[in-house]
């Protein structure tokens, strides 16, 4: 058996006063898929980063294959056969997929014979179910494509213990199943052991052998998946699991708020551009845009924020042409929540409080202000940190130190605040635990009921069906299908997503 087992012993990690991990001991048997569950900020990423030598644990030890191991940095970990796919991507953006694969090998040859390397890579990919594009720079790949490339890279590097930090948040359910069943097959054949961080119970149930739950940095329970019910796992995560709020849909649709007509723009990949002939979102309505990642959703978002210039057509908000300047966005009450908010919607090295104030820092009660009101900023931040349950050491911590889910909450707290007429969101629940998912979907629905027009671009079909009044399907840069949510079903939408209908 090539797969290796791993054990952490009393692992503790402190960031200043905050104990992100508190004496966590976990045993992962070789050749199994071990799920790691926990709320946002529970310390899951911190635990695996300590294993990989990215952080140095304050206390505690590590056994790899039964032997005590000292891991100073990720290179040591790789030498021991440990590999990890991080929650934030670590591919090199300007290098192509193939270049990323070859250069991350410790034995990359001094002079690279590309034709030979390509043949080798293609042969290696032949028995994997995913085929990430290899000739495009990674910066031009969609989140889903990057995720596949990250996993492929680890397998290519010959890792025998693979840590996956929320690998499926960017994949469609079908893609996720495909990826995970292949990984499961690799485990069963004894090639690899997997530590899988996820928020999706469905995946734990279908693919994992064992599960460990963390709560606020502490070990809250371990067991075989077969012996644990969903309710039991939820209870271990939350303490007492609160009832999931029911989303009521009230109110009627109003006037059109966002209108796109004949909008054209170049796409990130491929010669065919993006073409949206007609899209309208009315007040008090949620329009969901479904689609498999990489079908033009990123570009659509960029068109709406005017980061991607239109080659034809127009975008109007409340009948007025919209150029997405700060003044226009403020006057028309337009708010955004793009994907990868740490990169696209925050200033990573600025504090949580400053990031929360980005929309309003230069306005006071009586119009524009010249001097920042720090006290009010902190007070306001504290209120929103409490209201949105953001886990941060303090309002002064840089937002980049927050866990993935908490960055998401911070940006949402900023964007949903105050008067909003139009909200454009992409994958708002990417990487959130289910409590947070329920809370955020509740907030979106409440905003809709208040009369906000919401355009929801999401790769999660459940989310689309739960929230949307109307559903549009994006495929190959076009809106392939639009229907009232009540008049269609998952099978039909899925067929259009796959481009079959």
């Amino acid at each position: 058996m090539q797969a290796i087992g791993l054990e952490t012993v009393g692992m503790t990690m402190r960031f200043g006063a905050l104990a992100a991990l508190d004496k966590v001991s976990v045993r992962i048997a070789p050749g199994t898929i071990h799920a790691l569950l926990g709320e946002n900020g529970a310390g899951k990423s911190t635990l695996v980063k300590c294993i990989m030598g990215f952080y140095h644990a304050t206390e505690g030890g590590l056994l790899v294959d039964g032997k005590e191991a000292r891991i100073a940095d990720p290179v040591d970990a790789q030498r021991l056969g440990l590999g990890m796919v991080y929650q934030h991507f670590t591919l090199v953006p300007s290098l192509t997929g193939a270049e990323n694969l070859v250069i991350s090998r410790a034995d990359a040859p001094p002079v690279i014979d590309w034709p030979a390397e390509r043949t080798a890579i293609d042969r290696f990919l032949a028995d994997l179910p995913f085929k990430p594009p290899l000739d495009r720079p990674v910066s031009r790949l969609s989140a889903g494509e990057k995720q596949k490339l990250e996993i492929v890279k680890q397998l290519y590097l010959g890792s025998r213990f693979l840590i996956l930090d929320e690998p499926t948040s960017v994949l469609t359910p079908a893609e996720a199943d495909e990826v995970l069943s292949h990984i499961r097959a690799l485990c069963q054949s004894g090639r690899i052991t997997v530590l899988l961080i996820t928020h999706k119970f469905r995946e734990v149930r279908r693919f994992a052998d064992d599960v460990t739950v963390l709560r606020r940095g502490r070990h809250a329970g371990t067991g075989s998946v077969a012996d644990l019910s969903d309710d039991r796992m939820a209870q271990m995560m939350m303490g007492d699991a609160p009832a999931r709020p029911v989303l009521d849909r009230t109110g009627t649709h109003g006037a059109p708020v966002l209108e796109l007509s004949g909008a054209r723009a170049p796409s990130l990949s491929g010669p065919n551009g993006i073409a949206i002939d007609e899209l309208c979102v009315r007040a008090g309505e949620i329009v969901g845009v479904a689609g498999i990642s990489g079908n033009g959703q990123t570009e659509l978002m960029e068109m709406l924020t005017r980061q991607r210039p239109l080659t034809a057509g127009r975008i109007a908000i409340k009948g007025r042409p919209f150029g997405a300047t700060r003044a226009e966005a403020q006057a028309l009450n337009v708010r955004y929540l793009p994907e990868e908010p740490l990169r696209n919607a925050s200033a990573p090295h600025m504090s949580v409080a400053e990031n929360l104030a980005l929309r309003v820092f230069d306005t006071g009660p009586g119009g524009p202000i010249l001097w920042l009101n720090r006290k009010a900023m902190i007070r306001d931040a504290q209120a929103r940190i409490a209201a949105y349950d953001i886990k941060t050491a303090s309002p002064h911590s840089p937002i980049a130190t927050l866990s993935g889910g908490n960055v998401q909450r911070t940006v949402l707290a900023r964007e949903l605040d105050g008067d909003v007429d139009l909200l454009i969101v992409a994958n708002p629940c990417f990487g959130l635990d289910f409590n947070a998912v329920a809370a955020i979907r509740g907030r979106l629905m409440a905003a809709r009921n208040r009369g906000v027009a919401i355009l929801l671009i999401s790769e999660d079909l459940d989310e689309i069906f739960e929230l949307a009044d109307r559903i549009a399907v994006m495929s190959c840069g076009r809106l392939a299908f639009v229907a009232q949510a009540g008049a269609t079903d998952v099978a039909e939408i899925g067929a259009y997503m796959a481009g079959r209908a």
Partner: protein
Amino acid sequence: MSGDLGLWAVPVAMLGGAIRVSTPFLFVSLGECLTERSGRINLGLEGTLTFGAMAGYALAFESGSAWVGVGAAAAAGAGFGAFHGWICRFKGVNDIAMGIALMLLGIGLAFFFGKPYIQPVAPDLPSIPFGFWSDVPQVQAALQVNVLFLVGVALAFGMAWMLRNTALGLRIRVVGDSTEAARAIGIAPDRVQLWATAAGGALAGVAGAYLSLYYPGSWNEGLSSGQGLMAVALVIFARWNPVLCLFAALLFGAAGALGPALQTVGFTSGYYLFFAAPYVLTLALLIFTSTPGNALDSAPGELSITK
């Protein structure tokens, strides 16, 4: 028909001028390109170039060999580059501010040590007469190509190949794009940046030696006319691509040769305005080649000017 080419003299003189004037641009911009590809920016190359010109001239004079001078200039340049690379690895050191300081230091040191070498005559670098087939003196003069230019052309293609096809080249690009990713795959960013900056400095030193040992071909304090600074703009214009650096350098060289070329055909009124052509060209190119949206797509991610 020897001698009188009429207005044809202008393009012929510009061709020759382009090759002659572009060589220092080519070397500094290749040096800057390599440095920036590793994620550092070195604004001190103007100083490195001036010091290289002085050091090259001085050693060529003392030793009697122009090539010893070129070697000395490269070594001095590498020293400046390595110093820059070493100092920038410390937390809180800004590579732009440090570069400007080094530029002033280089120029100052060059003037200080260069005083005794303003008068003496050092040996010139050899050149190859590619114009032997023609009996027109202007053509012969234009095709008198210096060996360093040929080295520079080979270097441009070699560097482009290196960045695509060698592990070293990929490592430089990884470091330039994301030091975090570099660490994750076990590359020490500081080391790579140190060597890339040192190599970039060496190339700038060679550019200086070309100025003092070939064209114009003597050492004085007004020798460099901002080639080291314009290289920064040139690299951006060339989109961090060594082969495009070659073409950009030729373009700048041709623009620089415009003034003198017009002079040769007796165009005297206001011709000195044409001496400003390279600078005007720099501005114009940077403005017209920067389209919003995709302008800096190819910029290395760790570069402090684009971050």
